[in-house]
């Protein structure tokens, strides 16, 4: 089972190629043709990435997230979320690598089998880097009017965080 997961990508690559070749598809030219369109996507995504990552990087350096943590912790305690998890929840939607860093630190500090460590792990496992995803998708599609996508996505994130804390309390 473990080998299956470590080999998942090569298995898919070989499997798809074999299947297509048996069906007499010109696998290599199809692959190269498709890869070209990937490059086009990159060109569309890069400007959005530069914009977003610059802003996030400045925000993290300015200490704004720590200030917000301090301001919001009473609200969190009221709904049953430990304030220690707040930095993780604030970072999660904007930076995947930063969230993994913050989460790993929590797991190391409080122990992987503590309620707090488990909740941090569940939060990391059940949410995504929302703003990055939004920027990349709308950047690639050339969308300027995003309508309700951001509020709906943040709604899902919030429920994901609360559900993570509740699920850990319920199941362990």
């Amino acid at each position: 089972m473990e080998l299956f997961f470590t080999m998942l990508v090569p298995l898919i690559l070989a499997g798809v190629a074999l299947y297509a070749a048996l069906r007499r598809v010109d696998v290599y030219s199809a692959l190269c043709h498709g890869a070209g369109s990937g490059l086009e996507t990159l060109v569309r995504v890069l400007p959005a990435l530069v914009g977003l990552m610059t802003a996030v990087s400045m925000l993290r350096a300015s200490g704004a997230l720590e200030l917000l943590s301090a301001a919001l912790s009473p609200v969190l305690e009221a709904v049953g979320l430990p304030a220690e998890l707040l930095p993780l929840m604030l970072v999660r939607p904007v930076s995947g690598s930063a969230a993994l860093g913050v989460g790993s630190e929590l797991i190391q500090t409080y122990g992987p089998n503590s309620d707090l460590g488990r909740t941090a792990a569940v939060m990391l496992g059940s949410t995504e880097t929302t703003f990055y995803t939004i920027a990349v998708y709308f950047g690639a599609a050339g969308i300027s009017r995003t309508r309700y996508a951001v509020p709906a996505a943040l709604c899902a994130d919030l429920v994901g965080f609360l559900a993570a804390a509740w699920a850990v309390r319920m199941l362990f």
Partner: protein
Amino acid sequence: MTMTVIWTGMAVVAVVCGIGTGRGAEVSAAAVEGAAAAVELGLSMAGMLCLWSGVMEVMRQSGLAEKLSKLLGPVLRLLFPLERGDRAVMDSISANVSANLLGLGNAATPLGLEAARRMARKSPGIASDSLCMLVVCNTASLQLIPTTVAAVRAAAGCQTPFDILPAVWLASALSVGTGVVACKVLARLWRN
């Protein structure tokens, strides 16, 4: 417009907080580093983007994409009623969802972006209901086995790093479900 507000907000807050906390120099450095990091990320993504776009093309030409679409069709038709007739979009969405479920984020993004670009052709510049749904589904995690987090727990000395799976599934399901319901409700309420 939403992204304009978010971007401007982040930049202004960073400047004000940076001055307030006396970290002006760090904020300046961070702006330069952030822009450079974005290009680095883009370049490190480039290989994966091209590779998986290529694999998608092979899947399409061999009919594999269509099979996947049929398998996921019943659920996806409910989520994307407006794309029902567009086979290319449905194929891309199916591949995107499959890659997400398998935890192949690097593969899921190019496949999802392809679907997004096709959807945007029908309403240039404005996010259609389908596109909002696609984005929200991708901002919520569909991953069945969170391998990265499990690796972190194992590294911290946990003997059973995967014992959080039921909790992850429960939280993911609630989060994705909320996103889907929010999209369906807001699609009716949203003016413009």
